[in-house]
């Protein structure tokens, strides 16, 4: 029963991640952590961090979550389910490309969706930050430094994640 639910939850998320893999974060947090309680907040954040240092798509965090919920089968089911919607839509739309791009309704749809995506990402950042960083000014500073490196200096996310992990390790020692 869990497998079916896993497939449904991840299929649903896979169908609405407009704007790239990162957009899954608020959805997964809401569904997997808050609604079903399959992962703790900490495991969820770690899943994202591991997805970041793994080559391939960020959405591969689904593998982590699936495995944690239901072992190897869960990992396979969650991973396939999360990629299936975009796979189908892309292959089906590949022939209609010119028409889709000229369709003003689709452009309008995205113009409406992306502000919502920004809002949800902000909410996710605030929720994760409040749960994990608020109690320690050093971690807040680390997050700020990471943000500056990412936005201002366009440093690759992989290095930022690994660097932050090492820094955290050194701070705690």
């Amino acid at each position: 029963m869990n497998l079916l639910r896993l497939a449904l939850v991840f299929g649903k998320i896979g169908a609405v991640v407009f704007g790239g893999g990162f957009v899954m974060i608020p959805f997964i947090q809401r569904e997997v952590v808050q609604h079903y309680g399959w992962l703790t907040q900490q495991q969820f954040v770690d899943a994202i961090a591991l997805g970041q240092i793994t080559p391939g798509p960020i959405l591969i965090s689904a593998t982590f979550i699936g495995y944690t919920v239901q072992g190897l089968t869960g990992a396979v089911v969650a991973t396939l389910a999360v990629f299936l919607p975009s796979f189908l839509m892309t292959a089906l739309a590949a022939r209609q490309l010119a028409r889709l791009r000229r369709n003003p309704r689709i452009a309008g749809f995205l113009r409406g969706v992306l502000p919502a995506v920004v809002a949800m990402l902000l909410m996710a950042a605030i929720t994760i930050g409040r749960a994990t960083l608020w109690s320690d000014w050093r971690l807040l500073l680390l997050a700020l430094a990471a943000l500056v490196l990412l936005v201002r200096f366009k440093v690759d996310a992989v290095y930022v994640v690994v660097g932050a992990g090492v820094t955290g390790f050194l701070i705690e020692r």
Partner: protein
Amino acid sequence: MSDSPAAVRPVSVAGLPRLTQVMLKVGATGFGMGMVGVLQQEVVTRRSWLTQEEFADGLALANLLPGPIAVDVAVYVGYRLRGWIGATLCLLALLVPAFVIMLRLTIAYLHYGQVPQLHGAFKGLNAAVVALVLSVAYRIGKSSLKSTAQAALAAVALVAAFLHANLIVLVLACGLAGALFLSSRPKTVTP
């Protein structure tokens, strides 16, 4: 659905084994959006399977559709070159390296994640994830919050999200609002 999508072939023909091999390489060496760069290099520059314009079309399509951009582009490439089989193989080959590595990391994490010595490292990762999410919000916001209406939509969505609105409904509702009120007017009179 009878005519082959591979009817228009640019310069060279992509065999299925080679296509799979290339996608395995992209999946093993590219990180997140970085995969798009590796993919382009392989498919356009090195092998001339698609022209630069065709590849750019795929990228534009990926931006219209849900899903990770790089995965969408890979599926597009596979479909353009070899139809449904190509698309399926591309998706699976792209995912296999990440899946295997992630699985090993997960098992290691479930084993050693509670080791107290690693506590600090995970706290550091928390900080990085918060920064990453904010940076993506900034990047998408910079390109998508271009009008007062869009900024207002974002503000409303933020409040709704904090009030525990269903996020999927929220995204689709905002999309619908966009389709109704933010569609660019075509030059001809709308019917």
